[in-house]
């Protein structure tokens, strides 16, 4: 193992290691971040939600977007799976349906970065997202 030789070294190291706990730190203060919830119930997984989730994580990471991607149960929009819910800081959540990787990129560049709306928004009120519906 290498020695940490200076404060600069240490700081660099911290940057590199940050991702180890980033997820936990983010989850402690999600309201400051872009929150993405990917519906991962059976229907979602079958329709490729897992790939979308990975794609979103990698892509936002590449673009250095401070985001928190979590999975969630069925949102109740099985007809439109895979669905994702995006919450920008200080904004109401917005749900998108039929997301594929192209759509995901569009959501990132348009909605997440610029705040513009994208096709495929499912008009719902927030209530539906409550997990206890699953029972």
């Amino acid at each position, binding site marked *: *193992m*290498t*020695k*940490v*030789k*200076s*404060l600069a*070294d*240490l*700081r660099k*190291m*911290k940057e590199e*290691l*940050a*991702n*180890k*706990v*980033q*997820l*936990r*730190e*983010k*989850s*402690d203060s*999600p309201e400051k971040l872009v929150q993405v919830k990917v*519906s*991962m*119930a*059976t229907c979602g*997984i079958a329709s490729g939600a897992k790939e979308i*989730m*990975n794609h979103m*994580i*990698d892509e936002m*990471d590449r673009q250095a977007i401070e985001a*928190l*991607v*979590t*999975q*969630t*149960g069925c949102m109740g929009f099985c007809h439109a799976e895979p669905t994702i819910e995006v919450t920008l800081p200080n904004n109401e959540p917005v749900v998108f349906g039929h997301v594929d990787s192209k759509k995901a990129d569009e959501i990132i560049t348009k909605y997440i970065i610029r705040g513009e709306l994208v096709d495929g928004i499912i008009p719902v009120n927030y209530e539906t997202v409550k*997990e*206890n519906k*699953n*029972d």
Partner: protein
Amino acid sequence: MAKFKNHVLVCGGTGCRASQGEEIVQNLNQVIEENGIEQDVQVVRTGCFGFCEKGPVVKMVPDNTFYVQVTPDDATEIVKEHLVKGRKVERLLYTDPETKERVSESKDMGFYKKQIRIALRNCGFINPENIDEYIARDGYAALGKALTEMKPEEVIKEILDSGLRGRGGGGFPTGLKWELTRKVDADQKYVVCNADEGDPGAFMDRSILEGDPHAVLEAMAINGFCTGASIGLIYIRAEYPLAISRLKIAIEQAREYGLLGKDILGTGFDFDVEMRYGAGAFVCGEETSLIHSMEGLRGEPTVKPPFPSESGYKGKPTNVNNVETYANIPVILLEGAKWFSSIGTDKSKGTKVFALAGKVNNVGLIEVPMGTTLREVIFDIGGGIKDGKGFKAVQTGGPSGGCLTEKHLDIPIDYDNLLACGSMMGSGGMIVMDEDDCMVSMAKFYLDFTVEESCGKCAPCRIGNKRLYEMLDKITEGKGTDEDLGHLRNLSNVIKDTSLCGLGQTSPNPVLSTMENFWDEYVAHVKDDKCPAGQCKSLMQYVIVEDKCVGCTLCSRVCPVDCIVGDKKAPHVITQDICIKCGACYDKCKFGAISIQ
């Protein structure tokens, strides 16, 4: 590098490990693998979350679901439902004792709501056995900053300005102590971490060492830099095997990274840490006693002055600080004195960790800002008194603290306020008592502890506490006299006034504070031969209330000494001189016909 999308934080603290925390980790990992999601999910063994009573605790990240009382068998469901399907395992969520609702995230739990975590910031957050996670959380950045960008005087000033006071009980300003040690000229100085944690109810130091050992190492190094010490010694009780092993791992890792050892961060500063083990005597937590114990001498205190900062370990200037005190240091340097001193009261800054125990709904380790009231701690965080009983008193400051009552509930907790009302901060033990607790017995219980733990060096503590105990025992047996009450008070005052060390100087506090706040109870024991709480066996009787007894005979069947007589369907009677007061009938009677008098 694989990027985990979920972290499963499994408490690896002593409390949770005792209840199968290890198996939970194993099972989780196994099921995760079986489900092929090991690329996405990382299981992390963390330190204590503070909610040990409801342990083992498992926290799901990023959605922050907080599972309590998890068993190894629950692993499958957690993985298959929560991780694979994103569905919470409802039955493992915490149930609010008041509303009976299930709460999913810790931040919505009463227990955590009023807490601010500074000393415990990494406990239950990082893997304490992985230095990388500590560094990722700005670990060793404070040390780096101090060594590279600050002078020792500046660091000390920052600590002084922060208003941090010793968390080991005395509340001595930490910056001032460093300054004093710094000022003494010597070829060798030592920095000591006091991890003796002798208060039987407290476990914050253990939790910090188990959950965030690097924070203590880092702070000790900063202390060494400020005071001019190159050797740090951690005095830890041998009954803390997990903390010891985590510390050892941490020291090893820090050495490998060059964060302990020679020429730290290329600044020319040398500092290393060694461990010393204590046999667990309470008085060995007293700093001079601790130093003697480290020197291989009998663990007993010596009169101060000289203070350890002048003449300590091996006669050299030695700076002794408590674990929790240390845990605050790195944050203060990174966030600044101003930030720290904005938390707390006028003379007590920052937070304090308390071990909340006794008759409250939520017991555990909590960290609250100084100035939080006892009411907030007991009723908001603690969730109120168990079983809907009435609050009677709270003992703060450990076995030699004082007993506070209803009238103290709204006093903001800090060093000075607690002292002013006849108690003390101590190491942060907090034991809540309800209406069923007898205050004389309570005082006796604590005296029993101090009698056991007195080192025997000075006469007032060695003999005086024994006599106090004997008198209290006499009173709870119903044999106390008026004279005893006077003697009790005088002796308590003299022991406080003449004892050599903090143990004897405080050990009569439970007696004095209960006499002050519950005088009537003492009088009742002595004059009326009654224990109002019905706890003193010699002073109580189980009596069957005629009106309520339906003659079901249940009581007479459970009585081990067959002293309950009565015909079927007719009221029963207890023969008092045979009754051994075991309480079996009282517990069994369905009609509440048996009363305590």
